[in-house]
């Protein structure tokens, strides 16, 4: 088994070192919380509803790269592909809390759910109010009847963008929760992969895929997708994915959406653009209006090759918060 060659120091230190790398890039705006792998903004206005995101590491720029202007206030980060332990979440919670409660926003995985829930219990013992939105945008991971069993993938970016916007504007935790939950409810994604990533501590590919096969319905980790098929050309592959995504919400003629074509790690921008060409053609044919298109590496799975397509349906309110400027290491908008 070919081991991945990575530009790192001790594999055990990757998370701390990457967080330090973000702090260095932040021009003094972000700090690390001593002793735990969490980053928070240095200046958070009193009374602001705190927006805490987080999850396993290895998906950068997701999550810690989305701290910034009109984005998240902090991120609790676990080891590679492992949800953050509750104490990490709790320390970040205390650092962000400005008297008006916090929204926890993260991907819907057993590990994240349990660890964040333990942190909620700890926060409540300290008198800090917490509401939670779990992101479950991956249409491939469970049928719509069991939407709460779906996992969170690249739709994270759009939901965080909306949550960052509303939490900068409203000091009402209920409202922040409500609008963020609606962004989540309006977001659908699906991913595919053509080759695996690896975790630094083992260096081994997290799965093996024959040379002529593609994994359909891939998530953000090494866990396999929902099916394997013979490798397809970009256009028929996109058609297949779009069928599943569009019929799920469903997205309909006249809808207005934001579109994300997300690289899962090692897929080239060239490929993403070829994918976007077809996605956009399909949307035009269906008379679905694209309000904004985002293309690049936002939610990754180490050096996994593959991509995902995300659509978020807008309404007037969501559009208002989406259109707010934002600035962070991983996502910036004029």
């Amino acid at each position, binding site marked *: 088994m070919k081991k991945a060659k990575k530009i790192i120091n001790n594999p055990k230190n990757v998370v701390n070192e990457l967080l330090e790398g973000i702090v260095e890039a932040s021009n003094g705006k972000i700090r690390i919380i001593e002793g735990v792998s969490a980053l928070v903004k240095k200046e958070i206005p009193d009374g602001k509803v705190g927006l805490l995101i987080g999850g396993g590491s290895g998906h950068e720029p997701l999550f810690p790269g989305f701290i910034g202007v009109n984005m998240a206030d902090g991120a609790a980060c676990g080891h590679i592909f492992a949800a953050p332990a509750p104490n990490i979440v709790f320390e970040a919670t205390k650092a962000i809390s400005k008297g008006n409660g916090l929204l926890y926003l993260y991907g819907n995985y057993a590990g994240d759910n349990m660890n964040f829930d333990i942190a909620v219990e700890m926060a409540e013992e300290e008198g800090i109010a917490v509401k939670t939105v779990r992101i479950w945008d991956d249409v491939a991971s469970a049928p719509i009847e069991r939407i709460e069993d779906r996992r969170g993938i690249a739709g994270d970016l759009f939901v965080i963008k909306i949550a960052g916007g509303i939490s900068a504007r409203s000091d009402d935790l209920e409202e922040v929760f409500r609008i963020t939950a609606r962004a989540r409810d309006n977001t659908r994604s699906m991913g595919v992969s053509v080759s695996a990533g690896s975790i630094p501590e083992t260096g081994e590919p997290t799965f093996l895929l024959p040379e002529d096969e593609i994994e359909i319905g891939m*998530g953000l980790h090494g866990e396999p997708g929902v099916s394997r098929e013979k490798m397809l050309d970009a256009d028929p592959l996109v058609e297949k994915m779009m069928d599943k995504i569009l019929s799920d919400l469903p997205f309909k003629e006249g809808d207005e959406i934001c579109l994300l074509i997300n690289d899962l790690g090692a897929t080239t921008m060239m490929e993403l653009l070829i994918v976007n060409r077809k996605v956009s053609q399909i949307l035009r044919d269906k008379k679905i209006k694209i309000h904004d298109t985002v293309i690049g590496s936002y939610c990754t799975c180490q050096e996994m090759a593959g991509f995902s397509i995300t659509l978020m349906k807008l309404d007037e309110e969501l559009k208002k918060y989406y259109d707010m400027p934002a600035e962070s290491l991983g996502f910036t908008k004029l």
Partner: protein
Amino acid sequence: MIIMVREFLNLNETRNMFLFVSKYIEENKDFLTQADKAIGDGDHGVGMARGFIAVREKIGSKNFNSIGEILSSIGTILLTTIGGAAGAIFGTLFRGASKNLREEDTFSVRILSSMLNDGLESVKQRGKAEPGNKTMVDSLEPAAIKSKELLTLPLKDALIAVSEAARIGAENTKGMIATIGKAKTLGERSLGHPDPGAISVCLILRSMMEYVLSL
């Protein structure tokens, strides 16, 4: 050679038993990781080893006042160092296990049974898994149930029986379709592979048994 029949362990021996468990998990890191690669994200061994190495480092030479204190220390260390589903689940297992053992200063079959059953209850509460979901509960529950029948056995015999129950439980997960955790998106593709967390439960009980046998 006459094998001494131990009815209980004192506090230091109990601590040492869990230090032995820690080494055992660490040695099986790759094995657990391979199991997680088959149906999960390939990090279970890495996480469990990280947690149990921290246990060894932090309680290696510490003195405790009760069995409960040992278990809850281990639970907190696992909870704060593993992360992921395993951190919450195995942390909760040990913390839950400690619940009724704050006054106990010897480890016996009765304690073993209390620990497994209270731990099981906490795990189910935290993770909402039931037997058949293909999780560590499928290994833990048969062990916990079995332990209640063994209260009159010598500690080593009880541990042999309990770890055999856990092994069979883990073995049975091969025939299950995962409906909880990272393996659940696989559906039928999870068939034929055992659940990594269930294997960890086996390893913990098996190494406890080996430790007691070695006394």
